[in-house]
């Protein structure tokens, strides 16, 4: 076998095994998108009911006051929570959400305030560490299947920092899973909780006999942190679904490219093989002619 043919065949083999890997990752990501979507769906009833309970408190008591709802006038430090993935190979997923995070921080600085960075996901941690940006807190190791306990841990830490005025606002950069083909990295304000979120749009009347146990204020004390944790959990779940959708898309592109490359390389291999045969035939024909010429002479 000629040298050229050998080289091309080796490349085909290597591209083929890469294709097998990317194809497997594509399939795994596809099945995880479905699971992640189911988790998003499963979390909705709780979030909905919690919001309704909160709205009931707001409606029954007329006006609500709580530290988590308070717009602070003198806010020097603003928290930015960036939700990224633990693993790469997800196309532009991480760079998109990190860009939103950077934009949020830029906006904070333009108001003359100091951003405080919180990061979820290994990729985000690596990004900020490389750039020497100090992180107040970071969490990693659960980006694909975020458990509720982690959301609770993150939410509790954020509320603590908010309570001691370490941060006076909190924004979150995460990726919204609109559909398997439309992912949108967005920035949202999580704290203080906007008054319109609590009041809601429902027009149910005030019920004279409504009971609260303990009082509405104490209930709110538990409801509002729970509400924030639920929002963090939703952001983690949306991001997890998006991560898998982005990975599936990236791996599909890689598989398609590998197929294309294999096609081109196969043509090259065929041509090299054809050339080799042509050379061999002309050598044989040449040799035979030389022999017959010698016999005649």
């Amino acid at each position, binding site marked *: 076998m000629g040298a050229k043919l050998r080289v091309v065949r080796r490349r085909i083999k290597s591209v083929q095994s890469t294709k097998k890997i990317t194809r497997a990752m594509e399939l795994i990501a596809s099945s995880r998108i479905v699971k992640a979507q189911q*988790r998003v769906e*499963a*979390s909705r*009833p*709780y*979030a909905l*009911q*919690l919001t*309704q*309970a909160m709205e*009931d*408190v707001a409606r029954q008591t007329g006006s609500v006051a709580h530290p988590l709802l308070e717009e602070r006038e003198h806010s020097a430090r603003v928290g930015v929570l960036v939700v990224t993935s633990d693993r790469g190979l997800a196309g532009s997923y991480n760079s998109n959400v990190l860009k939103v995070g950077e934009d949020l921080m830029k906006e904070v600085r333009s108001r003359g305030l100091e951003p405080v960075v919180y990061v979820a996901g290994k990729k985000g941690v690596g990004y900020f560490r490389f750039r020497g940006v100090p992180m107040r807190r970071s969490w990693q190791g659960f980006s694909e299947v975020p*458990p*509720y306990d982690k*959301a*609770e841990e993150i939410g509790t830490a954020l509320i603590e920092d908010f309570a001691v005025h370490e941060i006076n606002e909190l924004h979150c950069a995460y990726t919204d899973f609109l559909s398997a083909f439309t992912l949108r990295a967005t920035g949202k304000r999580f704290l203080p909780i906007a008054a319109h979120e609590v009041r809601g749009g429902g027009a149910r009347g005030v*019920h004279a*006999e*409504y*009971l*609260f*146990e*303990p009082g*509405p204020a*104490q*209930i709110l004390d*538990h*409801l509002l942190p*729970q509400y924030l944790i*639920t929002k963090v*959990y939703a952001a983690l779940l949306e991001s997890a679904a998006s991560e898998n959708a982005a990975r599936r898309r990236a791996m599909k592109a890689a598989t398609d490219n590998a197929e294309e490359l294999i096609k081109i390389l196969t043509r090259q291999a065929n041509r090299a093989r054809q050339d080799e045969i042509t050379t061999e035939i002309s050598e044989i024909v040449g040799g035979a002619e030389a022999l017959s010429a010698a016999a005649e002479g």
Partner: protein
Amino acid sequence: MTVEVHVVTPEREVWSGTAEQVIARGAEGELGILAGHVPLLVRLSIAPLRIQTEGGDWLMAVVDGGFLHVTSEEGRTRVDVLAAHAELAGEIDLQAARIRKEEAEVRLQSHATRLAEAEMASARAELAKAVARISAAG
């Protein structure tokens, strides 16, 4: 007259259906909810939750705190139980709960003098969760 009951956690809907009554332990004591109850919002303790289903059978579950919300719409009473974690009696791992209880007890006893307030509270909550599970499953 029955009530519509939904027991939900952030991760899943644990149980939903119609029931005769629901008995839970609120922050200020036990309470039973029957059809026609006035609107109510209660903070729950870490405790067993009992639901009497339509046939009269009792369904046991456990909730790690959370809220119980009673609303009524057009005469129908609806009870929502919202908890960070909740399990039906059949889902409880009794063995794990016993181990959890022992560990929490050890933590409370051996370090009672040295533990910070927050750690004490978390150990007590752990103990309460384990005890509630054992009593709901038993």
